[in-house]
């Protein structure tokens, strides 16, 4: 009888089986990649060893276009920056020009802008959270968030006439006033948003599968986030208390009651939760804005910007000349430059504007918050699993229109 020999079973590693590193393109056209982004990853099995990103697929040279358009004509271009919350770009750009001209803005314009910015922030966060969670397999939440987003779009359509690219602000004011009965519509919509956010939070916050899929995935430390130039929810998720609405208040944000939402670990879970909570804070701001909504004009009285009344145009030479100059040349800021920043949905949206005293911007540099965030993406995903890279990208909320400009 021959004795039975035993052999220890050794699980072969992928290397032993002759696996080689694989170069894989994520994007530029891929359903899980939000927009025309391309990141090339070097894979060892499912682990990302190295990564490099490329952008420019949606580049339209917004800054060059801006140099060849009048100040008011630039506004439609800004819609295309962060097209998920286009109103905030309108406001950010107009604020830069108005600050450069030192325009006295009517109170009603400012309150309406604050309210619409917060509505846009809600849309942006809803889109980000919805698509991020659907990417990692939780489909239901997508309907919850996108249903109410649709309601807000309908509301904004009623105000502005457009669903995505609003061009609602003008240098010095707004294109049209709110309609009658807007307050009631808004209340209904906000109630629905609150319910949706509540439902999504309940579905995911303590969901074992979701938590395992997002906790400690793509964690960014405070120091890293600051060094990489993160702003907005991605920075706050790491625990850095920084929100331009509180830090350098504009448009009277210091008079509104709201909390800056902070995360702890800076991982995907925190980024999603920060956004969900920020939606609730935005709702608080909108309620306060509606409560204080002052009556008054929706355009500044500044003669450099506002078209004179028809009566004046027809009856006085000054009025006629004023009208002619504004129609032919538009807004003409004085010589000078300004860097103006607002807190957009993804972080600091800055416009560096140089005026040479003519009717076109001499130079307009846009600082989109996504640009530095996407720059760090290749560092963040190194060492993580390929599937996690998708979860991380969604939570960073890179909007290519703003990244590529």
């Amino acid at each position, binding site marked *: 009888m021959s004795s039975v020999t035993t052999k220890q079973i050794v699980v072969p590693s992928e290397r032993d089986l002759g696996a080689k590193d694989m170069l894989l393109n994520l994007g530029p056209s891929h359903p899980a990649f939000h927009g025309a982004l391309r990141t090339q990853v070097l894979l060892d099995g499912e682990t990302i060893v190295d990564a490099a990103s490329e952008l420019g697929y949606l*580049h339209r040279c917004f800054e060059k276009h801006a140099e060849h358009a009048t100040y008011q004509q630039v506004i439609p271009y800004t819609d295309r920056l962060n097209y998920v919350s286009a109103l905030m770009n309108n406001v950010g750009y107009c604020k830069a020009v108005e600050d450069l001209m030192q325009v006295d803005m009517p109170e009603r314009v400012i309150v309406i802008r604050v309210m619409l910015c917060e509505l846009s922030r809600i849309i942006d966060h809803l889109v980000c959270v919805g698509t991020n969670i659907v990417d990692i397999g939780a489909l239901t939440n997508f309907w919850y968030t996108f249903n109410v987003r649709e309601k807000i779009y309908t509301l904004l359509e009623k105000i502005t006439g457009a669903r995505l690219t609003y061009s609602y602000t003008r240098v010095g004011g707004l294109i049209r006033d709110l309609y009658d009965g807007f307050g009631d519509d808004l209340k209904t919509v906000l109630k629905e948003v609150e319910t949706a956010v509540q439902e999504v939070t309940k579905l995911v916050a303590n969901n074992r599968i979701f938590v395992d899929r997002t906790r400690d995935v793509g964690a960014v430390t405070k120091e890293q986030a600051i060094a990489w130039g993160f702003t907005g929810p991605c920075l706050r998720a790491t625990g850095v208390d920084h929100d331009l609405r509180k830090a350098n208040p504009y448009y009277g944000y210091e008079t509104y009651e709201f909390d800056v939402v902070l995360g702890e670990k800076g991982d995907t879970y925190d980024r999603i939760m920060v956004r969900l909570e920020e939606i609730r804070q935005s709702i608080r701001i909108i309620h306060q804005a509606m409560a204080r909504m002052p009556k008054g004009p929706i355009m500044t009285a500044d003669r450099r910007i506002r078209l004179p009344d028809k009566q004046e145009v027809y009856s006085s030479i000054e009025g006629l000349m004023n009208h002619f100059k504004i129609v032919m040349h538009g807004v003409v800021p004085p010589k000078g430059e300004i860097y103006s920043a607002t807190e957009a949905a993804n972080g600091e949206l800055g416009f560096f504007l140089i005026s040479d005293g003519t009717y076109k911007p001499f130079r307009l540099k846009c600082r989109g918050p996504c640009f530095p965030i996407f720059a760090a993406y290749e560092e963040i995903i190194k060492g993580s699993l390929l599937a996690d890279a998708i979860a991380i990208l969604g939570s960073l909320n890179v909007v290519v229109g703003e990244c590529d400009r």
Partner: protein
Amino acid sequence: MSDVKRHFDEFHPGLIKELRAVAMGEALVISPGDLRLVALALKKDLGFDMLIDIAAVDFKGKAEPRFEVDYFFYNLARKTRVHIKVPVASSDKPEVDSITDLYPAANWAEREIWDMMGIIVNGHPNLRRILMWTGFEGHPLRKDYPINKRQPIPVLDVNLIPERGKHS
């Protein structure tokens, strides 16, 4: 802002060439050779821990020197900003030093000023085009680049990881 000027006057006299008034603030003008020194002082001594953005401007025909690079820093603890202006000496071969090792956020921003404005960033680890494609000729944000100029978009199979670090 004047704190920043005072600090430089005390510890690095002569570094700030000029204090220029801009709308809602001031900008500090420095010479290109001092950029890294200033950036280091801003980071280590003055607590400007965040680089917000870098912008390059072409003043062709309007002012001398032709190019200028603007740096925007932010101090998260004190919630203040500082705006540094660097006039670039040569208009044929505009150059600035890289601050990517001090502020990692400068990496792509410096690639952008190279790509769009043709400012050479010395010491940058990966000075390749970023918004335009490899093989693009010229720098579109320069004032002498015509707005209606078209260039053929090549079909390239560029591998990003192996290409890193090879300057084009």
